[in-house]
């Protein structure tokens, strides 16, 4: 399956990634080759009632109860920018083409 540069850009946009034109071309080729390999799945038998999720057959049911979370100062110690106990980010505006 061939992937066009436009398709690579569309996927990159969904993944919040940007690539140089050269990397887009390289990625289109690499992804196409991997997807071609993955296409062999079409020739294997499947089970129709397969469910998404993890194979955790013996996990005990967890009680849904509130408990203490990380203290604010511990959380903020890892934040790239903070002010007066709050996390700081640039203003919320940007290109309109982000879906």
């Amino acid at each position, binding site marked *: 399956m061939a992937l066009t540069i436009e398709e690579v850009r569309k*996927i990159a946009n969904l*993944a919040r990634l*940007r690539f140089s034109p050269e990397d887009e071309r390289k990625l289109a080729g690499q992804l196409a080759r991997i997807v071609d390999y993955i296409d062999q799945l079409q020739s*294997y038998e*499947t089970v129709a009632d397969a469910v*998404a999720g993890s194979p955790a057959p013996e996990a005990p049911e*967890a009680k849904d109860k509130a408990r203490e979370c*990380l203290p604010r100062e511990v959380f903020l110690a890892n934040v790239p920018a903070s002010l007066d106990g709050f996390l700081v980010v*640039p203003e*919320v505006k940007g290109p309109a083409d982000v879906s």
Partner: protein
Amino acid sequence: MSPELWDLPAEEIARWVAAREVSAVEVTDAALERTARVEPLIGAYLEIFQQEARIRAAEVDRRVAAGESLALAGVPVALKDNLSLTGHALTCASRILSGYTAPYTATAVERLLAAGAVVIGRCNMDEFAMGSSCESSAYQLTRNPWDLATVPGGSSGGPAAAVAAGSVPLSLGSDTGGSVRQPAALCGVVGVKPTYGRVSRYGLVAFASSTDQIGPLARTVRDAALGLSVIAGPDPNDSTCAGRPVDDYLGGIERGIEGLRVGVLREVDVESLGGASAANWRESLARLEAAGARIVDVSVPSLGASIAVYYVICTAEASANLARFDGVRYGYRASADNLTDLYFDSRSEGFGPEVKRRIMLGTFALSSGYYEAYYGRARGVLEKMRRELGVALEAADVLVTPTAPGAAFGIGEKMDDPLAMYLSDIFTTPANLTGLPGVAVPSGLDDRGLPLSLQVMGRMFDEATVFRVARAFEREVAWTASPAFRGAQAG
């Protein structure tokens, strides 16, 4: 003290320290000295906890003196750098986590510490555990102690190289598609992928949540079993962690395998691997028979799809799990004047090429118009594979395959061919996808003198039988080879 203290198995160190025949501080010093000698050659560590390790060792000596019984008293251990340890940097070998400090400790690591282990340092890995050679680390190259021109495997290349080189007798890695077993194979050590849910994933940075498991690496099967017995067990902090108690892995490990049915998968075309690997495989089966096992032929027709299934499901999960790295809450933040650019630039500058490739592939597989054809299809094939393996494991008590298609490959050899790199995990991914336990155990050397390995897979939560088979095989192989650090003089 004996100059070979660094070479002792974990089990023996713990026994000596508990009996106060040697102190944890002496053992730690020996490990640090050995590490200082080998580390310039292999580059297994991103950070060595020189001072802290000595302080922790002194604490272990005090606990022993106070009468505490510790399963890993004074045992030096190394951690893959995707396992949290409070107050320490945690990078996943990625630039996007530079500057991040773990605010809590992973359950598996907590249990090592409670058992008296001493953490020597955090080890290099493929970025976010995505790779089979340790070459996708954003920080450094790790070399295979057997031949410094070859890779240690991956993604737990650092923990495998550290154990093989004698820096520590025990380390922890994580295995999502073979990331403990494949580097263990390439470095000539034992590596364990436990049953999904056997070890808590709390404090392990998520890559693919439905297949990630933390597992031990060691130089002997007994040490690997000891390591797993310490870290396994229920944990309320991980909702996928099983509630059942942990078996006594060491209790029956020497019982032998007389009459045990060892299944060989018809679909695994070992002969196609060529010369040394095929010969070693035939020899391995003969050794299992010599130990009393009965070789039985089993079939899992969907096995050939495992890499394709893996690279749909795990990249899909990775694309979701790694969405959290956006430059807002932790790690690397790009300079940007609006929030959208901050997301795009932080991720584009912070992630390396292999991580981006897998995020792209996973996003593609989950995207509108492709979801059913790829993700849906992969889940259907996976379920079929799970059922077929279940049937195979009724006809056999364990299944065996080579762990990897061949011995360690050259540095840079597969970096430009992602698909060739992915195929390194062809024998290991089925256990991850279906949750089964698997152990890699050295099976001999190839014609270049590099280690080869046998994988033993078992039924869900039946690690005890898997260890028993691995131990019987280890005895038959009589593995005494050790890394030669080939290339050290020239390099």
